[in-house]
């Protein structure tokens, strides 16, 4: 059983111009410690895929499971628990600092302010944004804003992080440290599912996938190794 499983997922939107299929029979699996990156053009549906995978948006068809649980019926409970969804767009309240922002998710789950502050600071340090704790949104660079957004998600100790466009709008020279951070989080056992519209975001991913015309393409995950029971071999040897 994989940590995250999408099977035959369909998703379509209807607007003035008609119906648009954004996910067409999409299947995806991710294990603990995987860094999976989905590349796609603008409006390809990569953000939708992430929201569906994180249980934020229900699919029109197919199955989404996290740790064996159907996300369609358990989504609300798992989001913020086992699953973290990180979008880059930060919306601090007036006068709010990065630390306040990183504490929001914890406080909304009735974690005590002292504990929330400690966990948020730990998360900010982990993502290399400890120095941003007192900064307001306007004082953050785009790379720092990404780190703060990630800290807010990580403070909740998820097992899977779905992160939308981690390097979008980030200066070319500041992208690698963010990619390196995502790689290190995956190496520590966190499952990272990222979307990207820039090929830079694919670097060192365990699996790269392409979303286009509603189809998810790319190399399938390696098949689990066939386990041959040792005992049977020994028995055969003994009987031979």
């Amino acid at each position, binding site marked *: 059983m994989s940590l995250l499983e999408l099977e035959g997922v369909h998703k379509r939107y209807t607007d003035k111009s008609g119906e648009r299929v954004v996910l067409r029979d999409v299947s995806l699996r991710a294990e603990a410690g995987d860094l999976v990156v989905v590349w796609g053009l603008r409006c390809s549906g990569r953000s939708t895929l992430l929201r569906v995978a994180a249980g934020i948006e229900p699919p029109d068809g197919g199955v989404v499971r996290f740790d064996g649980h159907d996300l369609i019926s358990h989504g609300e409970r798992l989001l913020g628990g086992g699953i973290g969804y990180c979008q880059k767009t930060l919306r601090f309240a007036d006068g709010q600092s990065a630390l306040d922002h990183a504490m929001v998710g914890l406080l909304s789950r009735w974690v005590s302010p002292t504990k929330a502050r400690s966990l948020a600071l730990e998360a900010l340090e982990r993502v290399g944004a400890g120095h941003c704790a007192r900064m307001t949104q306007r004082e953050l660079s785009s790379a720092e804003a990404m780190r703060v957004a990630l800290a807010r998600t990580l403070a909740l100790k998820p097992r899977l992080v779905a992160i939308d466009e981690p390097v979008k709008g980030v200066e070319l020279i500041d992208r690698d440290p963010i990619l390196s951070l995502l790689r290190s989080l995956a190496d520590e056992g966190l499952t990272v599912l990222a979307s990207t519209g820039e*090929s830079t975001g694919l670097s060192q991913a365990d699996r790269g996938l*392409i979303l286009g015309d509603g189809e998810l*393409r790319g190399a399938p995950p390696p098949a689990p190794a066939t386990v041959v029971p040792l005992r049977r071999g020994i028995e055969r040897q003994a009987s031979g």
Partner: protein
Amino acid sequence: MRSPVNWALLGLIIEQPSYAYNLAQRFERRYGEVLPLSNIGHIYTALGMLGGRSLITEIPGTRAGRQPKPHYRATALGVKEYRQWLVGQVGEDRRRNQLFVLALAALSNEPEQVLEVMAGYEQAWLSEGMRTPIARVHDAAADSASALLSRLTEEENRLAVGAKLEWIEYARQELKKLRGLVRRA
């Protein structure tokens, strides 16, 4: 002069005038598998070619001694032509891209086959993108010229992967339309 080895060698001489054996060693360090040398004789041939075109010249007095090591330096013409060659690489990239599309046209009667080739091509570029290393955090003190060179190379590669993936996505859409037309016909 079409051989990239000759141009690469000229670049090394511009960077630092030297003698054949040292140039061969620097060539292998710099270009490695990107531009493999068949043997050191290749360097002597290239030096002859560059000298014959007055792109390099022997430094006077370096042929003396029991073990003469003639050193070479680039001429003003050599530097000028080298710079022109570098800019001209744009044309090389364009020719390479054209070659792929023209060769693909051989399968145009079978859109399904073209789409299969495109799928393989897409996968190859995707793998290339994933293989590209993440540059280490910049450390001004330890940031040597070779580290900078490596970062620049990788960044160009990553951006090229993006451009290819976008082109493939566009081509797939067009090919799907073509397949529809062929089926209707």
